[in-house]
C-alpha cells in the first residue's frame, strides 16, 4: 500500500467519498468552535482593545494563503515528474481557495490596520507581498481558464507555479529591502518569547485547525468535481466520435 495508489482517480474517488463527511463535520466543529470561542469568550487586549479578535481569522487565513501555494507547488511537481492526473487537478482545485484566503487576509488586515495604524493600507513588506501573492494566484487561475486542452493546461500551469514560487520568494525579499514595515513579527513561532499569550493562543489553534480542515474539505470536493468534469468531457468526446 503506497501513497501513489491515491493517484488512481477511481481509488481517489472512493477514498475521498468516505473521508469527505468526516472532514466536513470536523471542519464545522473546529471552525465554528474556534471562531465562537475567539469572538465571545476571549478578553480584549490591553493595547488593541477588541480588535485583537480579528486575529482568529487574519492569522489562519494568512497561513493558509502561503501554505496553499506551497501545496500547489508540491502537487504541480508531482504532476510534472510522475504525471498523476489527480495531482494536477488538486492543484487546480486548490488555487481559488488560496486566492480567497489571501483576499481574507488582506481585507481583515486592512480593517484591523485602520484603527491601529490609522490607515487602511500601508506599503508594508508583508502587506505588499500578500498583494503580489494575490496577483500570482490571479495569473495562475487565469492561465488554467485560458487553455482548452487539460494536459497542456496542467503542464503550463505547473511550470508557471514553479517559476512563480521562485519569484514570489524573491519579491518577498525585494519588498523587505524596499520598505521597512509596520507589521509585527510572527504571532506564532517556536520561540516562546514572541508568541501571543495563552488566552489568545488556544482559540487561535482551534481556529487554524478549522481553516486547514475547511481547505481540505473544499479541495476534496473541488478535486472530485474536476475528475467528474474530465470524465464528462471524455464521454462527450467519445460520443461525438461514435
Amino acid at each position, binding site marked *: 500500500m503506497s501513497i501513489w495508489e491515491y493517484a488512481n482517480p477511481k481509488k481517489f474517488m472512493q477514498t475521498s467519498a468516505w473521508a469527505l463527511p468526516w472532514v466536513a463535520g470536523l471542519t464545522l466543529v473546529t471552525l465554528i468552535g474556534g471562531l465562537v470561542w475567539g469572538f465571545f469568550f476571549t478578553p480584549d487586549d490591553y493595547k488593541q482593545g477588541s480588535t485583537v479578535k480579528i486575529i482568529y481569522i487574519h492569522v489562519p487565513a494568512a497561513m493558509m494563503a502561503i501554505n496553499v501555494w506551497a501545496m500547489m507547488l508540491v502537487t504541480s511537481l508531482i504532476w510534472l515528474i510522475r504525471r498523476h492526473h489527480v495531482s494536477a487537478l488538486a492543484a487546480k482545485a486548490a488555487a481559488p481557495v488560496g486566492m*480567497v484566503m489571501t483576499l481574507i487576509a488582506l*481585507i481583515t488586515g486592512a480593517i484591523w490596520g485602520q484603527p491601529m495604524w490609522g490607515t487602511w493600507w500601508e506599503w508594508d513588506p508583508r502587506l505588499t507581498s500578500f498583494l503580489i501573492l494575490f496577483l500570482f494566484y490571479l495569473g495562475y487561475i487565469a492561465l488554467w481558464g485560458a487553455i482548452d486542452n487539460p494536459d497542456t493546461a496542467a503542464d503550463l500551469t505547473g511550470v508557471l507555479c514553479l517559476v512563480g514560487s521562485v519569484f514570489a520568494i524573491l519579491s518577498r525579499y525585494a519588498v523587505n529591502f524596499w520598505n521597512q514595515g509596520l507589521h509585527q513579527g510572527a504571532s506564532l513561532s517556536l520561540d516562546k518569547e514572541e508568541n501571543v499569550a495563552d488566552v489568545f493562543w488556544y482559540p487561535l489553534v482551534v481556529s487554524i485547525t478549522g481553516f486547514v480542515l475547511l481547505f481540505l474539505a473544499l479541495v476534496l470536493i473541488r478535486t472530485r468535481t474536476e475528475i467528474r468534469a474530465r470524465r464528462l468531457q471524455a464521454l462527450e468526446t467519445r460520443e461525438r466520435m461514435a
Partner: protein
Amino acid sequence: MIPDLGKYAGAVLGSYAVTIALLLGLVAVTLWRSAKVKRALAAQEARMGQGDG
C-alpha cells in the same frame, strides 16, 4: 449576547462579516459547481447506457 466590543465594534464585526461572507461564497460556488457537474455526468452516462462511475 454580543460581547462589548467598545469603539472597535465596527472593525471587528466588519472583519467577521467579510470573512464569513467570502467563505460562504466559496463554499456555495464549490457545491454548486460540484452538483452541476455531477448532474451533467449522470445524464451523460445514462444517455450512453453505462451506469458505472
